[in-house]
């Protein structure tokens, strides 16, 4: 059965910049981008990979959507170059003060407008704020089944079986479509490197931009007043960490010294 898949992605500032270059804007309480590059949040790339693999196996369509600034077009083009068919940017200054539940409302309304979906995939956690909550909120907004931390999906006759990674192993969960899953990485969903011709083709594709007014949003759910939590401060903790280096002419000598030092510190 062909699968109509929607993948939600978020563009973030490269999370792997050195801590020394990480700054918070005291006014907006958000990270300062500076000269750092923008990337697709890591697990969202795994979600794209899962979607494209399912499409390759069963047929269907992959639509990438992102709620974010105009720059998020580059993230959506990456999704297209990895095998996505269509992409939609949802961009409106109104969304700047939404909390996570408010963003989930916007995403859910966007998904309803796209319509006809079997699977909705997201990354399991964003590389910036990282509270793992938006996918669950979206499933409630949409009234569809939800499974979190999914590494693999098998599809058969309108049913899907999802492998959910838990602390001591995994669960196999059966669900009827439509279902929403948040994706965690494993060796089967490592994001592919797009081919040059696919990057070129993606570059030429039109990406429509939807505004708040296009989505039929609930006005009570918009803006800072509707937020159910407020972020009152974001700060960089001061760390007094100094690393004591264990020197030695050979790794063996270092190991002996390390063991002695650990013993001295009563750690072993």
């Amino acid at each position, binding site marked *: 059965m062909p699968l109509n898949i929607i993948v939600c992605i978020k563009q973030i500032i490269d999370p792997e910049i050195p801590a020394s270059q990480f700054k918070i804007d005291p006014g907006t309480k958000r990270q300062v981008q500076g000269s750092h590059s923008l990337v697709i949040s890591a697990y969202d790339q795994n979600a794209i990979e899962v979607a494209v693999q399912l499409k390759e196996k069963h047929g269907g369509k992959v639509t990438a959507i992102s709620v974010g600034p105009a720059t998020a077009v580059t993230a959506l083009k990456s999704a297209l170059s990895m095998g996505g068919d269509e992409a939609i940017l949802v961009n409106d200054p109104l969304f700047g003060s939404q909390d996570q539940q408010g963003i989930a409302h916007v995403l859910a309304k966007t998904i309803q407008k796209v319509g006809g979906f079997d699977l909705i995939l997201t990354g399991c956690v964003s590389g*910036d704020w990282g509270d793992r*909550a938006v996918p669950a909120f979206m499933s409630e907004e949409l009234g569809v089944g939800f499974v979190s*931390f999914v590494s693999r999906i098998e599809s058969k006759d309108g049913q899907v079986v999802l492998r959910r990674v*838990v602390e001591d192993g995994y669960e196999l*969960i059966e669900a009827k479509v439509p279902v929403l899953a948040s994706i965690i990485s494993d*060796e089967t969903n490592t994001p592919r490197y797009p081919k040059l011709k696919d990057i070129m083709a993606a570059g030429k594709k039109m990406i429509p931009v939807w505004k708040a007014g296009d989505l039929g949003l609930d006005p009570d759910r918009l803006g800072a007043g509707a937020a159910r*939590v407020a972020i009152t401060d974001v*700060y960089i903790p001061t760390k007094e960490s100094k690393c004591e280096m264990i020197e030695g002419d050979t790794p063996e000598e270092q190991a002996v010294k390390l063991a002695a030092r650990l013993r001295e510190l009563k750690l072993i």
Partner: protein
Amino acid sequence: MPGTLVLATTENAGLTRNTLEVLAGGIKLKALLGEPVGAAILGRELSAHVPLLFAYGADQVYRAEHPLLERYQGDAYASVMHQICQRAQPSMVLLAGDSIGRELGPRLAHGLKAGFVADFVDFDLDAVSGQLQFTRQTYGGKAMAVVQPKAFPVVATAKLRTMEPPTKEEGQTGEEIRVEVTLEASKLKTRVLEKVQEEIAGVKLEDAKIVVSGGRGLRGPEGFKILEQLAQVLKGAVGASRAATDSGWVPPSWQVGQTGKSVSPDLYLAFGISGATQHVAGISGAKNIVAINTDPEAPIYKVAQLGVVGDWKAVATKLIESCKELTGR
């Protein structure tokens, strides 16, 4: 009467350590606001757990029994927890930041039109306004955020291993409330077909006092055999970075980091781990971090207390020998 409601979970016929941590959170809020601590426990046959919950400080226990609650199933748990919240009218619902709480918490918050706070490390009352506020790590642990709920109740998940379990007071009792559960299997949108549990050789990773971890620098699954030997000598557990689990060298359950486990051992030995943000987020609770890497510029040294620059394999192999001698094991 409002108060905290915590979700209790069980394993091997006992309460999980995660449950004791959220109970500690409830007890802390009780100390701040004087509100009682309720515990919801869902399952099939729960009578043995009720006195334990009282002993660990619960004032009320909401006991919900049904065959469909035998193990965690998202829709069933969400529905019953919603029902219990409507009855208990808590001001705070506290869940562990594990695979259950992280999935259930936002779903519950949505249904209750509640604020949601994920993976807090602490909470207190704002010195000026007296408002309840939570502190949580963000940006992969590079920053801390203070979050104030605006809509009550607030649903919050506690980052694992940041709160100490409360002391057990035998004989303490409280009020037990039986919850009538009506669930129909046909209404559940998802169904657990099977759970595949991995065998754990020694101590559990999240509970270990010593964790020996390996990353991309190990260059393959074989290296983990050496780390397992070292862990055995140190009576510790073996962990891995995302690079190692994503390569399929070791199971995903070994992963330490933002998407893996949060660990807070006394000693964390990181072999061939560069220290990506997503990994470091999982070891912020470790009391002592030792980094062993060939790259002296690796970010792991920024968070480590002890560092060795050198070949991980040679260091690990010799370390096994030295530790055997020193510990007499």
